[in-house]
């Protein structure tokens, strides 16, 4: 079983984000530990938007703080289970904390 990072930059209403969320559910069901990184329009999934982030399938959900603020969302308004992060945290995720990176969706 692997530690897998999945990056999503598309709006949660896009086919691309929906595909990524489905992949996360399937990877999680197979026993992988998936960390979701949300950036760009993808951060909308962490504070609203449909479909919602597949929280139950994620070991962690990291949300780029600058991209949240840019879109008028305070880090305090994140769904429970989502953590704000910086670019350096995403780099650590890809380079040190994951066996595999998928994306950007």
């Amino acid at each position, binding site marked *: 079983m692997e530690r897998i990072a999945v990056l999503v930059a598309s709006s949660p209403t896009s086919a691309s984000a929906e595909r990524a969320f489905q992949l996360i559910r399937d990877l999680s069901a197979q026993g992988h530990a998936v960390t979701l990184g949300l950036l*760009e*329009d993808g951060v909308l999934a962490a504070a609203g*938007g449909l479909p919602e982030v597949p929280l139950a399938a994620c070991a962690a959900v990291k949300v780029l703080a600058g991209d949240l603020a840019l879109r008028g969302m305070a880090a305090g308004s994140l769904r429970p289970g989502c953590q704000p992060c910086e670019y350096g945290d995403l780099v650590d995720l890809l380079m040190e904390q994951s066996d595999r990176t998928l994306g950007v969706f």
Partner: protein
Amino acid sequence: MDRSICVLISQAPYGTVHAAEGVRHVNGALSQGFQAVAVLVDDGVWVARPGQQPGASGFTSLSDALTAALKASGPVPRVAVHRPSLEARGLTAADLIAGVELVDDAGLTQIITETQFLLRF
């Protein structure tokens, strides 16, 4: 008939440049004597979310740009937000900048057929 245009903004701000281009063209149309209606639909409704903070990113705050347009001393646009799109994203009128109006599907088609031209982003 006065010249008029509906600028339809259907994409989320910042992820692509289209929403910013929409706001820019609303202002451009106004400055050229058009009546202008900005319609925010689908992911475009996020443009009217207040408090967008570009920080040092280099982006221009589109909520600030829309607010400035609405408060201008010269001609101002109508800004209509599509209520079904808003509700589908878990948002309400309270989540939007001041000065916008909500429209349903019928209101959307009414704006589109009352203006002369449509500019879609």
